[in-house]
C-alpha cells in the first residue's frame, strides 16, 4: 500500500461539544472588541504600588488575566517605567512604583491596608490559573451563603485580591 494511503487510514474525526463553535466565536469577538473600542476609564481606579513594576505587570497578566492598556505607560526620561494601567472586564487598576504619593507595597510596608474585589466569569478557572502562576491563596475557593463563590489570593508583592462569581449562572 502506498505510504500516503497508509497514513490516510489513521485519519479519525473527533466528536465535539455542540457549543464549541460558539465558544470559539466568543473568544474571537472579545479579542476584536478589545482592539476596537478602548472603554472609557471607570470613575474609580485603584492605584496599586509595587517595588517591581514590570514584574507586577507580568504577574497580573499571567495569574489574573489582566491586560495592560496599550499606550498608557509613563516612562521617565531615563527610560524607567513609572506607571502603567491594566484592565479587566469593566475595571482598571494603575500599577505604579511604591513610595509615590505615600503608597507602599506590602513587601516593604509589612501590611495591607485594603484589598481589591474583582468579579470574574468563571472563578474556578480563574483560581486554577492564578495558582498555576504562583499566586498565594489565602482564603480557599468556596461557596458563601450570600450566593457567591470566592477565593482570596496575594500577588507577588503581597497585595490582597478577592475574586468572586455569583453562584448559579452569573
Amino acid at each position, binding site marked *: *500500500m*502506498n*505510504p*500516503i*494511503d*497508509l*497514513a*490516510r*487510514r*489513521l*485519519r*479519525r*474525526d*473527533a*466528536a*465535539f*461539544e455542540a457549543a*464549541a*463553535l*460558539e*465558544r*470559539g*466565536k*466568543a*473568544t*474571537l*469577538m472579545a*479579542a*476584536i472588541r478589545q*482592539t*476596537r473600542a478602548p472603554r472609557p476609564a471607570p470613575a474609580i481606579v485603584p492605584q496599586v504600588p509595587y517595588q517591581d513594576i514590570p514584574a507586577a505587570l507580568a504577574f497580573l497578566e499571567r495569574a489574573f488575566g489582566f491586560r495592560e492598556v496599550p499606550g498608557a505607560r509613563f516612562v521617565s526620561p531615563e527610560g524607567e517605567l513609572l506607571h502603567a494601567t491594566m484592565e479587566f472586564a469593566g475595571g482598571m487598576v494603575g500599577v505604579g512604583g511604591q513610595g509615590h504619593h505615600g503608597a507602599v507595597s506590602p513587601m516593604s510596608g509589612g501590611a495591607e491596608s485594603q484589598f481589591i474585589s474583582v468579579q470574574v466569569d468563571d472563578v474556578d478557572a480563574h483560581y486554577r490559573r492564578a495558582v498555576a502562576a504562583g499566586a498565594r491563596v489565602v482564603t480557599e475557593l468556596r461557596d458563601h451563603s450570600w450566593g457567591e463563590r470566592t477565593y482570596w489570593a496575594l500577588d507577588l508583592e503581597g497585595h490582597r485580591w478577592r475574586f468572586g462569581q455569583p453562584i448559579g449562572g452569573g
Partner: protein
Amino acid sequence: MRADWPGLARRLDRGVEDIHVGTREPGPGFGKKEMVNEPSDAAVIGLSMEEPEAFGVIYDRHAAGVLRFLGRRVGAEVAEGLLGELFRIAFERRKTFDASRASALPWLYGIGSNLLLKHRRSEARRLRASARMVAADQAPTRRAGAAALDARMLFPRVADAIQALPDGEREALLLVAWEDFSYQSVAEALELPIGTVRSRINRARVRLRELVEPAGKNRVRTR
C-alpha cells in the same frame, strides 16, 4: 452570537458589486468549487482592516472546518481550546494575509499547524490510539490469518513513523493525507515554495516506506 453590525452588512452588500466577487472554495474534501455571489475571503479580510468585526465572517465560514482539522490531530478537547486562539491570532495577523488568494482556509490551517507544534504529546497519543483501533478492526475479517496479524503490527508502526518525521514533513504529509490538500494549498498553508512541499512529501513517503518495511521484505498486504 450572530453578527449584526448594520454598517458592516451594508458594506458587504456593496462589496458584491464593487469590491471583489470571487470563487470560494468550500474547503478541501467537499467537492468542487462553486460560484458564490458573496465577497471573497480576501475582500472580507480587506474590509476587516477598517471594520474589525467583519473578521467574524471569516470565522463563520471556516471555523467548523478548522475545528475538524484540529480535532483529527489532537482530539476534541485540545482542539476546542485552540479554536478561539487560532482565530484570534489570525485576526491579529490579518494584515499578512495575501489578498491574491481567494480562500483564507490554507492560511488558517497554517496558523493551526504552528499551534499544534505545542501539542505533540496529545497528537502522539491520538495517533497511537487510532492505530490501535484500525489494527483491531482488521482482526475479525474472514482471512483472519497472517494479513490481520500483519496489520496489527503494521498500523502502530505507521503511527510511530509519522510521529518520527521531522515537523515540516509530518505537517505536509498530514495536510495531504488527511485534509486532501493539493500541493498548492500546502504551499500556501506552510508558506513554502511548491517545490519544497513536493520534496518534503517525497522524503516523508520514503521515510514511511523505510520504517514500515525496514528490509524491503515482509511485504504487508492489508486487503
